[in-house]
């Protein structure tokens, strides 16, 4: 029941995400790359290199980068941005960028750049520094660049081609200045959110790309280390992300490679295809990924007629593969983690959304609280009539108007002797209040002697009093109704706020338990990929796991469950409804649920009063979602079928309310309100409720007008009594829950009054019951229930027995098998 009803399905959703992600592979690639890169840079930034080191090295590399063979706007753009932020490092920056230019072999422009940078550095002091707007700043830089390059170009023959390329370069300077501003912002980690916006991701991705372009290609013999690095990146992503990611990273790297020299589609094809094939082999380990990459590369090189380079190219691939193999698992996991973090962006969004939703729900709940308060206040303000003199005055006026108006003595009574008459009338009302009804003879002599209309007077006073009583009755009813509505509103607010807190459960690894579980399970040779622990309620845990499919070996059931049970010291079961085999995937996601350590075995015996087919008693035994076991016993206080309806209504309402999450006390209050509202029909019922928490064996009892219940174990028998009125009588009932810690082997016996009242001549009914229980040797609940019923019947007279119901529950320790 438990596992069927809880629907969270984290991994199911993840699977679906995967499908939709394929279309947006590029976006996610950027995303992941951005994160990996961002964290790497952050770490570097905080190390001994600190600001200047990172910035100068970045400047050096970026200055080297050029696209389409001759456009190199990156150095200037970077310089412009860095200058704005770190003016004190201007000289160092200038040197590193200039050196970068020179190292890339652009000697002619290298020197000219030095001059450009110095000029800009000097200009930046008074003028540029004042430009706060980034766009204007970028435009200023681009203009300086354009003018300077133009002047320099005058020395050469300035063709249209030159002019266009200078203009284009200047525009690119503007564009990249803007991009680098964004990228800097991220690298400095000023954006404290752990989730990057797509703009920031893009900026970081572009920076990364340019760094790759700018990296010098060190050739060791025929092996190009830069190419090797690119291949390594593809391999890593293919090994972690699969075919889709492999291919898209391949496209990216191919683009970088192509863009930095003469643009051809060839390299893109080659890397993308290799990345794709490599990714296909993802599930067979890193070596297989490498083989896949080689395979893709070989096929395509062969088709493109580049067999000549194949040996070296293959050599680079193998080297990259070796490096990947050498990366310790620890670092691979680090990489994995950041890749995962990128992936879980949508999850973060979900968390934020649920957070928002829960906040909304909280607000709603607050609204209900307010409503409840308003109802309660208006209920209080209107005190029942009669308390104030207003009413009496009104009634006396009515009498004067109706009875005395046409009387000849009117002016005598109501004008000359007003106060006397008034107080006499007042006394008459006190009299009718006492007697309930007035006749002519009830009117005191003092009044009768002066009044000529005593009969009329008595009639009217009785009538007005009746009216007043009726008014009083209904006003009180309305007040009660208001109070009940107020209570209900409060209850609803309670449920909503409960719901909201259930919805918002910040994900947190409980003391690194998730990591610990991963280690443990991996230690047993099972490739577990992800573990997530969800706290459901109290001690109730749900563990979601993702692993490689075992093809029906039931590793989850046979190995993992035992391991997890050992680690967490709780019994766990696998959710049997989810097996990856059904999905036909090679991954499987499943869930483990903590099994409550206790179980309850029950026994029931019941008999209706002789000659009656309907019993006034009703009972319900149910297990709730949160591993709470409830036994409810109710005795209707009416006669025959009516009593059965009372107790049945009470019990089904109680069960329903508890199912939807009403807390126990409040559920009982609500039913009380409902029974009262249902008047004029009289409905009273007793409630005997025991809720046993199967995780802690703690039992909570609510007894409303019910018979005592008994707890028997090897040593003693305890009696639990209450003296609360049955529900349906008072507006506000005091529910007094009693808690008791049960132990395995404890037996709880709940009976209706029919049992205790069976031996009529016995005065100490509880004593009688205790003796009866002491004499019972079995600890089988059903046999016990039967025996109690039988003994109760023997003790009473057959024709004089009430409805009888016995519920017996034994608490067992599931772990030890009682």
């Amino acid at each position, binding site marked *: 029941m438990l596992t069927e009803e809880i629907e969270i399905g984290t991994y199911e959703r993840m699977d679906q995400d995967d499908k939709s992600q394929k279309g947006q592979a590029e976006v996610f690639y950027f995303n992941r790359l951005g994160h990996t890169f961002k964290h790497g840079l952050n770490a570097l930034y905080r190390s001994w290199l600190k600001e200047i080191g990172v910035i100068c090295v970045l400047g050096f590399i970026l200055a080297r980068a050029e696209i389409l063979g001759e456009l190199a706007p990156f150095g200037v753009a970077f310089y412009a941005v860095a200058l704005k932020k770190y003016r004190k490092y201007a000289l160092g920056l200038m040197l590193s960028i200039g050196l970068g230019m020179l190292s890339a072999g652009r000697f002619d422009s290298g020197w000219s750049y030095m001059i450009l940078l110095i000029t800009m550095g000097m200009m930046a002091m008074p003028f540029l520094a004042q430009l706060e707007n980034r766009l204007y700043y970028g435009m200023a830089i681009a203009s300086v660049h354009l003018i300077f390059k133009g002047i320099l170009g005058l020395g050469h023959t300035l063709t249209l081609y030159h002019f266009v390329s200078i203009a284009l370069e200047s525009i690119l300077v503007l564009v990249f200045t803007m991009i680098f501003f964004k990228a800097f912002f991220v690298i400095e980690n000023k954006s404290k959110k752990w989730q990057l916006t797509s703009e920031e991701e893009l900026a970081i991705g572009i920076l990364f790309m340019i760094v790759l372009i700018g990296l010098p290609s060190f050739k060791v013999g025929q092996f190009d280390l830069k190419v090797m690095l690119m291949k390594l990146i593809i391999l890593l992503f293919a090994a972690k992300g699969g075919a889709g990611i492999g291919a898209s990273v391949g496209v990216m790297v191919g683009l970088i490679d192509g863009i930095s020299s003469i643009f051809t589609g060839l390299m893109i094809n080659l890397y993308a295809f290799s990345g794709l094939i490599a990714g296909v082999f993802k599930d067979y380990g890193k070596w297989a990924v490498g083989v896949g990459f080689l395979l893709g590369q070989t096929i395509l090189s062969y088709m493109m007629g580049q067999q000549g380079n194949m040996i070296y190219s293959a050599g680079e691939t193998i080297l990259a593969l070796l490096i990947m193999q050498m990366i310790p698992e620890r670092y691979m996991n680090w990489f994995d983690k950041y890749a995962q973090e990128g992936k879980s962006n949508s999850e973060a969004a979900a968390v934020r959304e649920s957070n928002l939703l829960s906040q909304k729900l909280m607000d709603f709940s607050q609204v209900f609280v307010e409503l409840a308060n308003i109802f309660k206040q208006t209920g209080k303000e209107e005190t029942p009539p009669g308390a104030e003199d207003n009413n009496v005055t009104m009634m006396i006026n009515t009498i004067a108007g109706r009875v005395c108006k046409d009387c000849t003595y009117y002016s005598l009574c109501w004008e000359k002797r007003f106060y006397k008459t008034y107080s006499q009338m007042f006394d008459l009302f006190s009299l009718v*209040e*006492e*007697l*309930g*009804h007035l006749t002519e003879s009830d009117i005191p002599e003092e009044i009768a002697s002066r009044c000529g209309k005593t009969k009329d007077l008595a009639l009217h006073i009785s009538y007005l009093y009746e009216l007043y*009583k009726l008014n*009083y*009755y209904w006003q*009180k009813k309305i007040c009660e109704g208001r109070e009940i509505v107020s209570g209900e509103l409060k209850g609803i607010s309670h449920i909503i706020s409960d719901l909201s807190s259930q919805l918002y459960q910040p994900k947190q690894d409980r003391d690194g338990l998730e990591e610990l579980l991963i280690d443990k399970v991996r230690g047993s040779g099972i490739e577990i990929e992800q573990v997530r622990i969800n706290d459901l309620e109290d001690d109730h845990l749900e563990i979601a796991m993702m692993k490689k499919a075992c093809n029906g070996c039931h590793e989850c059931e046979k190995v993992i469950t035992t391991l997890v049970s050992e680690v967490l010291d709780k019994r766990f079961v696998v959710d049997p409804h989810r097996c990856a085999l059904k999905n036909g995937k090679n991954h499987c996601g499943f869930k483990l649920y903590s099994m409550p350590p206790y179980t309850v075995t029950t026994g029931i015996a019941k008999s209706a*009063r002789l000659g009656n087919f309907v019993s*006034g008693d009703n009972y319900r035994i149910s297990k709730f979602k949160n591993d709470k076991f409830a036994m409810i016993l109710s*005795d*209707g*206080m*009416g*006669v*025959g079928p009516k*009593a059965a309806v009372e107790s049945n209504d009470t019990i089904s309402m109680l069960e329903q309310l508890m199912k939807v999450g009403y807390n126990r006390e409040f559920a009982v209050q609500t039913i009380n309100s409902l029974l009262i509202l249902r*008047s004029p029909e*009289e409905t*009273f019922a*007793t409630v005997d409720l025991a809720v046993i928490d199967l995780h802690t064996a703690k039992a909570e009892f609510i007894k409303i*007008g019910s*018979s*005592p219940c008994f707890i028997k174990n090897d040593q003693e028998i305890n009696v639990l*009594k*209450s*003296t*609360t*009125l*049955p529900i349906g*009588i*008072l507006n506000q009932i005091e529910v007094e829950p009693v808690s008791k810690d049960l132990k395995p082997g404890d037996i709880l016996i709940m009976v209706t*009054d*029919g049992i205790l*009242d069976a031996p*009529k001549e016995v*005065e100490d*009914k509880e004593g009688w019951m205790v003796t009866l229980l002491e004499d019972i040797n079995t600890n089988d609940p059903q046999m016990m229930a039967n025996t109690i019923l039988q003994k109760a019947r023997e003790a009473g007279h057959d024709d004089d027995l*009430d409805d009888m119901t016995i519920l017996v529950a034994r608490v067992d320790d599931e772990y030890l098998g009682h």
Partner: protein
Amino acid sequence: MQIVCKKKENHLIIGLKGELDMSTADEFKNKLEEQLDVTGAKNLIINFAEVPFVDSSGLGVILGRYKRVSEHGGKMGVVEVKPQVKRIFELSGIFRIINLFDDEATALAHL
């Protein structure tokens, strides 16, 4: 079951004889309702001197009368309750709302 009714001032005093259980509860209820209507009494006193047993339907009738009487501002008392019946009353919490008196005179004096 025998039911004897008398009215003193605005008190209705009921004397019972026999068990108040499922078989007599309805009869008792009808008689009480009728008497309350006719006499218009405000308070209700029930004498349990000769009632050896009350079951849940009996309790239901008593509680129902309490509801009616209290809604009209009246009070209710039970007198001369036998120990075994007193135990049932105690368990059901009736003494929280209905006063217990030794005899009718005390009840009349206090209500």
